[in-house]
């Protein structure tokens, strides 16, 4: 009975995803602006998003954080709107607005009643070309982003550790630099930096408009023509070519200590390919691999062995970033229970992975993971803003609408052999960066002395 359900759902999931809620239409304006419309007529709301194909990985050297800083400054003013007036008008219309920056994209969105869509487009088109910022605004807002960095990273040992891990993993590609920027460079970001970045990259032919909710594609087309159509494209937009990683030829290690670490863990990162236009099979195998190794807190390979059966880990999992413009990372994490050192935790990880490479994947688990991924397509339709975001991330990573729509079928067609081939590639053939996050040694020693099951001479101390 179960097997029948799996077959049914695997066959049905793709058509359901595009027919029930979530009809997707795409077109392009004459000035090169791409438009995607996702319909969901269940509630009278609409999400209006403009995504720019530019992010932290496109920043000029020495000016890290400028993509994100500009995102903040975009809420200041234009030739038509005063400081903060953009958000005031959104709120006065019962809407909410915000923005986000990653390595590959910068996005702006408003969520409003569907009949306010034209107003949102009018204002977003206005600030695409007519931003006005002052030295005073730059000075104050720079303080805000430094506070944001403090809140997101400097008060979080895990955040600082991850920043160091990426800096070690990427030896040449700008993914080595944290999105919000290095503090010493953020402190120097200027109005001129922001202006230059804005003038170069903020243009209709570098933007994707995504409208999701209670709208008809024709209505969106007419409004987009009216508001975005008149904007002149920029001559300076070229296909992004970032410095590529050289072959990773050796394993490397990061040891990060911080007195505020409560639960030490070991992390292992390797460079991993992402979904490519028309070629997503490798990424699908890696995504399934991450699910098989770490997609459940009880039944995945790492958690089942280390958390449930041996009781040696508090958490053991795997993470893979399948959607990015350039190759990103595949990560394993093992957080041991108190009394198990990080060196032992690393050995545990090695042991479970070695066994996995020998014994392969349990077909029953593989079926369960695939069935859940197919069902996730159904649940995802409940959140049209989430769908809009999925398209935005994919399109700014170089994928097409067709690629996004083919993804579930490509996952469904992936075999156990495909996954094991991918596993050997990232777990055996690719050199890795292994990192320890722990308290400073003297504090760790005190803690261990208090813990009856701790081994006083752990191999962890030898590695430091």
């Amino acid at each position, binding site marked *: 009975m179960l097997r029948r*359900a799996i077959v049914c*759902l695997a066959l049905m999931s793709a058509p*359901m995803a595009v027919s*029930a*809620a979530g009809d997707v239409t795409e077109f392009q304006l004459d000035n090169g602006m791409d438009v995607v419309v996702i319909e969901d007529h*269940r*509630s*009278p*709301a609409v999400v209006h998003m403009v995504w720019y194909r530019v992010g932290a990985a496109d920043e000029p050297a020495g000016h890290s954080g400028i993509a994100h800083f500009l995102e903040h400054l975009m809420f200041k003013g234009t030739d038509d*709107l005063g400081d*903060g007036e953009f*958000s*005031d*008008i959104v*709120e*006065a*219309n*019962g*809407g909410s607005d915000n923005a986000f920056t990653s390595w590959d994209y910068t996005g702006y969105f408003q969520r*409003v*009643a569907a009949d*306010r869509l034209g107003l949102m487009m*009018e*204002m977003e088109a*206005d600030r695409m070309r007519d931003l006005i910022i002052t030295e005073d605004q730059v*000075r*104050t*807002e720079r*303080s*805000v*982003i*430094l*506070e944001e960095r*403090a*809140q997101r990273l*400097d*008060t979080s040992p895990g955040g600082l550790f991850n920043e160091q891990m990426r800096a070690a993993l990427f030896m040449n590609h700008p993914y080595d630099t944290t999105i919000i920027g290095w503090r010493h460079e953020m402190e120097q970001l200027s109005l001129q930096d922001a202006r230059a970045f804005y003038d170069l990259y903020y243009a209709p032919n570098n933007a994707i408009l995504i409208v999701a909710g209670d709208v008809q594609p024709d209505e969106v087309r007419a409004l987009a023509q009216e508001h975005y159509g008149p904007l002149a494209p920029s001559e300076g937009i070229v296909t992004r070519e970032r410095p590529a990683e050289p072959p990773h030829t050796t394993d490397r290690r990061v040891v990060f200590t911080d*007195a*505020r670490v409560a639960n030490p863990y070991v992390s292992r990162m390797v460079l991993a390919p992402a979904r490519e236009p028309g070629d997503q099979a490798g990424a699908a195998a890696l995504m399934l691999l991450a699910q098989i190794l770490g997609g*459940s*807190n*009880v*039944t995945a390979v790492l958690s089942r062995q280390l958390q*449930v059966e041996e*009781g040696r880990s*508090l*958490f053991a999992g795997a993470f893979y970033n399948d959607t990015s413009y350039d190759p990103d990372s595949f990560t394993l994490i093992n*957080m041991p229970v108190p009394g198990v050192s990080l060196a032992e935790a690393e050995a545990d990880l090695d042991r479970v992975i070695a066994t996995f490479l020998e014994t392969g994947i349990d077909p*029953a688990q593989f079926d*369960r*993971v695939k*069935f*859940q991924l197919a*069902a996730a397509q*159904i*649940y995802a*339709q*409940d*959140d*049209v803003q989430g769908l809009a975001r999925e398209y935005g991330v994919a399109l700014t990573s170089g994928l097409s609408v067709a690629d996004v729509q083919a993804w579930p079928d490509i996952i469904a067609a992936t075999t156990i052999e495909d996954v094991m081939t991918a596993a050997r590639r990232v777990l055996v053939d690719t050199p890795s960066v292994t990192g320890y996050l722990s308290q400073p040694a003297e504090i760790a020693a005190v803690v261990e002395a208090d813990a009856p099951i701790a081994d006083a001479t752990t191999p962890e101390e030898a590695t430091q």
Partner: protein
Amino acid sequence: MIMPRVTAVLTAIVIALPAWAIDIQEVTSPGGIDAWLVADDTIPFVALEVWFRGGTSVDPDGARGAVNLMTGLLEEGAGDLDAQGFAAATENLAANFGFAAYRDSVGISALMLTENRDTAVDLLRSALIAPRFDDTALERVRGQVLAGIEGDAQDPDAIASASFNAMAYGDHPYATSGDGTQESVTALTRDDMTAAHGAVFSRDNVVVAAAGDITAEELGLLVDRLLGDLPAGAAPLPGPAPYLLAGGTTVVDFPTPQSSVLFGHRGLERDDPDFFAAFVLNQILGGGGFRSRLMQEVRVDRGLTYGIYSYLALSDYAPMWMGQFSSSNDLVAEAVAVTQAEWADVAQNGVTDEELDAAIRYMTGAYPLRFDGNDTIANILAAMQADDMPVSYVEDRNAFITAVTQDDIRRIATRLLDPDALHFVVVGQPDGLMTGN
């Protein structure tokens, strides 16, 4: 120039918005259990919320953390399935079950596909009615809870919250974390789990809400199947908490470059006649978005924080008016001073007509947009029932907001906002701030 058109649209909205309605069905199951439903068969799944009043506040004496640990064990083995068997069965159905313990309730959330809903309900029922509390699962989840307690001890936000609660609420359960302490959680036994299970789950302290692909009749049968075998008679609920914290500042030394700040004083009950005035006033003072007084003064004009918010904390036994932000150690004293000054300004001078209009426009315009998916709708319906609100609230709510006048705002500001009563807990190494009144 786009301003004239913007103005035109702003004027139009008051007419445009009221044309909204949502159809909430009040369902009583054949067995007599009430549930609320918004039926929508667009997507073939249902979102179900089942909340039990009480939460971690009904922990038995000497067993702090029992309800939280028990809740964490519900999905770790039930009936004839051990933890792995239960997880595999859930995955086979692609159902999503969530179990969470809060101060005032234990919440169960479920997303279930239409095609296998009956099987999924049976599985969920076994977790609720017949959890096994196996020793191995108990030890494993206990370890996870202890690690979380360790983590909170190193987290400035969690330290601020724990410090505020410990000083404010005397001997009431609100004074301590529902997760328990290292000592109390280490001492919990399987008997404590059984006792906590009995204290929390009963058919007379439950609210049920569903949204999605299910009919009223089907929901009635589902509810009886899921909850019909629960006993009556939940543990007695705690009474109101005392509030013992005078105005002032408490600095908790913690080695971090940025201080976490939690502040507040007494608030008001949801059934207070002036609740909506306070609700609107809080929106102006520090409710989300960039336009609030606190966000404008502390972030936008001075760059002292990434975000600052105030909120009416409507917990069952200690209604509070609270706020929070983080500022670097060298800026936090100024941020606290600006916050106090804004609090005092609004208490003395109220708000402008423009601020009141803008807040009402935002709150009434945003409300219908909340009902945008099965999952969110089920949560809203459960929250309304937990707050003893009638179904008609969704129709009337915007009228309550629109009715708030400047007189109402002045009255509630005078009555409640008191800069001298605000207590700030600052966790970090702030320059120029010391503990004192």
